[in-house]
């Protein structure tokens, strides 16, 4: 166990501070993704069935008032559906940006070493190079893993919205 923790510690140290930020960002991103997934798969069903039952219980399902109320119900549920999906998408977009930041800070370190020790002493530059490459990789991993989750959530939310609109219908007086 301690070896495992030490391996993680060494990895974060070779990656530098930016890697910690990326790790935190990916952690938050996946928390939000899990929260959304749970909502879409479990809690949303309860809300949906409650809303449909409420709608079915109404007598008037054709007037302007009914139309407005239907719109209100659908809107409330769809706002709850989308929830933090835009933030998740923003986080996915930020992952490569943070990776780039890590790249640049690492390269700055490499050039600092060059400025101090003159020519290319590969051994002293290695730490800067690893600080440049590891965050880039981490950012890419975060973005790639997040992109699929975010697209899936988006699709789920959209299909649920159309389901709602199909389930809560206006009676037209033929």
């Amino acid at each position, binding site marked *: 166990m301690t070896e495992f923790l030490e391996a993680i510690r060494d990895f974060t140290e070779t990656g530098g501070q930016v890697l910690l930020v990326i790790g935190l960002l990916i952690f938050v991103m996946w928390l939000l993704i899990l929260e959304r997934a749970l909502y879409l798969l479990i809690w949303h069903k309860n809300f949906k069935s409650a809303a449909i039952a409420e709608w079915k219980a109404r007598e*008037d399902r054709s007037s*302007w*008032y*009914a139309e*407005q*109320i*239907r*719109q*209100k*119900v*659908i*809107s*409330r549920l*769809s*706002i709850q559906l*989308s929830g*933090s999906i*835009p*933030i998740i*998408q*923003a*986080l996915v*977009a*930020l992952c490569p*940006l*943070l990776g*780039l*930041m890590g790249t*640049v*800070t690492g*390269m*700055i*370190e490499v*050039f*600092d*070493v*060059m*400025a*101090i*020790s*003159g*020519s*290319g002493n590969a*051994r*002293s530059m290695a730490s800067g190079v690893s600080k440049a490459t590891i965050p880039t990789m981490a950012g890419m991993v975060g973005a790639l893993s997040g992109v699929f989750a975010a697209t899936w959530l988006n699709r789920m939310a959209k299909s649920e919205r159309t389901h709602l609109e199909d389930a809560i219908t206006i009676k037209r007086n033929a």
Partner: protein
Amino acid sequence: MFKHMKFIAVGLAAATFSFGAMAQNDRALDLDALLKQLEEGQFSQSQQNKQREQEFMQKRAEQDSILEDTRKQRDARLQTSEQLETQFEENEFKLADLNGALDDRLGSLKELFGVLQQVAGDTKNKFYNSMISAQIPGRAAFLDQMAQEMGSSSKLASIEEIERVWFEMQREMTESGKVTKFNTNVVEAGGQKTNKEVVRVGPFALVADGKYLDFNGVTGTVAELIRQPADRYGDSAAELQASSGEMVEFGLDPTGGSILGLLVQAPNLRERIEQGGIVGYIILIVGAFGLLLALERLVTLTLVKNKVNKQLKSKEIKENNPLGRILKVRERHPNADTEALELHLTEAILGEVPKLSRNLTIIKIISVVAPLMGLLGTVTGMINTFQAITLFGTGDPKLMAGGISTALVTTVLGLVVAIPMTLLYAMLNTRSKNIVYVLQEQASGVIAERAERG
């Protein structure tokens, strides 16, 4: 011709005669006396001439003898010169013979002394940089002196000296495998010298009081590093000093101090930001401005959202939130039919939306422009770097590296501003959109529900 001669002679005689008569009035004026006088004059003349001839001859003889002497001298010199030349040639042969003999006798020793000199020089440099010299000073000075003596004069190293080189190398080797404690003067970070107990770990590390020390071989001083590595390394150093023989974990710098030295030279955050120059400061100012705007929006939107949620649940209409103000429309136009009401509602909603999405575009723009400004700084920095290259050539990477790291700092600053701005924009946009959705899609529904309840 003869006539003429006679005439001149008579004339002369007459003239002489008359002259004598005039000059020597007191003398007897007779021809005999004159004749006698002439004779005497001739006699004295010839006497003088003889004397002069004699002097001349004498001088000539003298000159001859001097010439003779000089010639003799020259011959003698030539002879000695010849002698010396032959001696010189003989000596050359002798020298060559002797050198050959010396080489023969030295044999493998000659190589040995060359190697010894080289090893002494190398070991001296090693001792200058070795941390063990903090414990055992003065080793390098002896080796330095020995190497110089062997290089400058023909003096050979004595057996004692050779054995001492061996001893010093052996001692360095043995000591580099030991962890020892000793007392020495340490220059603290504040600048004062104190005598401390120092722990030396082989040739790799010097620690005291949980702080890593740096040994300067040229001055022979031990100083605390101004910037220490991470705390857990310092703790491990303190643990090592407190331990008495048991195994402890300890972090050491295998390069013998150069990695720890880089720690000191690495610029801190403020120095980094200063490297960014004017462009960096502009990016930071813009970022701070964007952050203030975003915070203002965050507070306002959170408050508005809470009020709207309350309004959705409560029955009485309050005018302190956009939803309440829209619901008021119904009360103002109680007799309007549904179409007119919808128009009034749309109007009211259009009035509320801009208040909610105010400044969001500016935040979005800042999140987009910040990396671009960073790029601008990068390009200007690179221009400076290339100017340095045109002026000084590419010989010194230090000149170029400074400009390049300056150029990259602005990129970092641009990203540092852009990343939180993008996040904040996403959050704020979601919040304001949700409120707008509530107004656009739920306000009329709320009115309908209230109408149904009567």
